């Protein structure tokens, strides 16, 4: 049973649009899956390899702008962003990695955070290339119906899940975990830490870029403040994984479900809407203090808490 759970979940998800859900529910589903993709990507770099990134908005934004600029400058469909972004995002990730990966721990975190901000400022100021604050608008949507968007992001998510699983269960994954646990020890055992950290960064960045490409095509409008946002992209990415479970396969998915539903719920309550960052912040603080490994990572703790299993002897 446990071996097939992935396929069962995937199959159930693929059947969902046949139920004839209304377009709002489809939108929520699409957002949940998109955030799971970003979460899984972040998890690969930060959860498994231990390099906590505060700047994933940079990769998301570069992916989004690759698709947007293919449309606005070359006049071809934004969907070509998927193949194009692999190359573009990887080049940017190499550059960022060259600068940031020489730092460790919290310094790496802050360096990536500044990278995200630099990208936003540059995108705002290079009006000739990116269109500046006006952003890029995709005038003709590919589909009116959301079903195909759903299937596309579902395929991306399934591929990401498969890739993360394959990587983590391979030798590469063990290198990543070794680097996270003790970088000096890993190096002394002959692991080229810089090389493997760069690999983790590029994998993570390219997947995040995919989510960005999808975002451009799905939303039809991007501007620097949206796709390079610090709080609404970078920090939410961290929250998705922290809430769901760091270094677990299903953590980002659980986290994405909770965060997207929570954001929608808070937004719909009048007066409380302005306070959504407070509630997110409090949630983050509570999770870090009581469930530092997230809901999936500390599931046994939760079970004990609610008396579903007798306490360990």
């Amino acid at each position, binding site marked *: 049973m446990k071996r097939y759970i992935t396929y069962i979940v995937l199959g159930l998800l693929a059947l969902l649009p046949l139920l004839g859900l209304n377009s709002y529910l489809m939108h929520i589903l699409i957002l949940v899956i998109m955030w799971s993709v970003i979460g899984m990507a972040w998890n690969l770099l*930060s*959860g498994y390899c*231990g390099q*906590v990134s*505060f700047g994933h908005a940079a990769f998301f934004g570069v992916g989004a702008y690759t698709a947007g600029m293919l449309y606005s400058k070359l006049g071809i469909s934004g969907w070509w962003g998927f193949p194009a972004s692999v190359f573009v995002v990887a080049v940017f990730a190499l550059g960022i990695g060259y*600068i*940031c990966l*020489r*730092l460790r*721990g*919290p*310094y790496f*975190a*802050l*360096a990536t*955070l*500044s990278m995200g*901000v*630099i990208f936003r*400022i*540059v995108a705002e*100021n290079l009006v000739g290339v990116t269109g500046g604050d006006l952003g890029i608008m995709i005038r003709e949507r590919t589909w009116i119906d959301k079903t195909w968007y759903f299937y596309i992001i579902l395929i991306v998510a399934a591929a990401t899940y498969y890739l993360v699983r394959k990587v983590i269960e391979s030798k590469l994954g063990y290198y990543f975990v070794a680097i*996270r646990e003790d970088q000096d020890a890993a190096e002394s055992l002959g692991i080229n830490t810089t090389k493997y950290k760069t690999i983790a960064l590029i994998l993570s960045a390219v997947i995040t870029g995919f989510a960005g490409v999808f975002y451009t095509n799905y939303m039809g409008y991007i501007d620097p403040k949206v796709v390079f946002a*610090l*709080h609404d992209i970078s*920090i939410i990415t*961290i929250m998705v994984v*922290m809430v769901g479970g*760091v*270094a677990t396969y299903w953590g980002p998915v659980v986290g994405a479900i909770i965060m997207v539903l929570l954001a929608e719920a808070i937004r719909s309550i009048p007066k409380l809407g*302005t*306070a*959504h*960052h*407070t509630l*997110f*912040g*409090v949630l*983050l*603080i509570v999770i*870090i*203090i009581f469930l*530092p*490994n997230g809901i999936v*990572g500390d599931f046994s703790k939760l079970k004990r808490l609610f008396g579903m299993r007798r306490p360990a002897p």
Partner: protein
Amino acid sequence: MSSVNLEVLLQTLISGVLLGGLYALIALGMTIIMGVMKIINLAHGELMMVGMYIAFVLFSWLHIDPYLSVFIAAPALFVLGVGLQKFLINPVMKVDAILPENQVILTVGIGMVLANLATIIFQSDYRQTPVSYATKAWYLTDLWKGAPLELSLSFPWSVSFTIAVLITACLWFFLAKTDTGKSIRATAQDLDAALLMGVNVERMRVITFGLGSALVGAAGCLFIPIYYIYPDIGGQFTLISFVITILGGLGSTVGAILGGLILGLFESLTATYIGMGWAPVGRFMIFVAVLIFIPGGVASLLRSRKFGK
């Protein structure tokens, strides 16, 4: 170089130094927290924002001068910092988690809550304290009649700068001469050795976090007469202080002061000669350049000069 060009250059340098002194004060708080606790306080700018709003409220309700509110905001921020450290950050330092950066993420959460609460209480309007001396300035020609150049020195900027220098001097005295200060430096240098020497490390951490918060709160009060506030202003100052700490050398107080001055000068020069919008980019260019070429910061250069011979 014509005299107008020279005037512009000198004026830019003056404002750069004034700005740099204030930057140094902000970065000092972050540096001592980083030195003692080995964590980066990402809520640093938000704490400054709290200090700024305290000064703003005191000014608009009780008409207390922003410079006097340093004496209220700094202790208030000290208490807030101690509370945060004691009830939120210390418990997390003991929690066993996969990611050691949990404390950093925790400070992000604290910052989010502070900024959002400020938005709820004060709305997201830009606000100012219209002090009477805001546009007062000294002119070189008033002091020296036949001066070949015309330079001006803004009154609030120079007062803020002077107070910042005074606070820095007090901090130096505290760290160098008092028992508590010495214990803080010992904890920063070697935690285990300090512990063995009978330093109450836990208490030093609490005091340091409070002290760092108080410093940045005071900086907030000094910024208020010359700047404007809005609830999300904190983020940019967190980044500025981080850039300065990297520039100066991690955990080095002298480095933070020098780094603040360099950044202030550089930003002022970019703003004058390239354009206002690019000043933040200049800031990050420095940051990237430092990471690539002098990863140890200015402090490492000083050290190698001293011991290199």
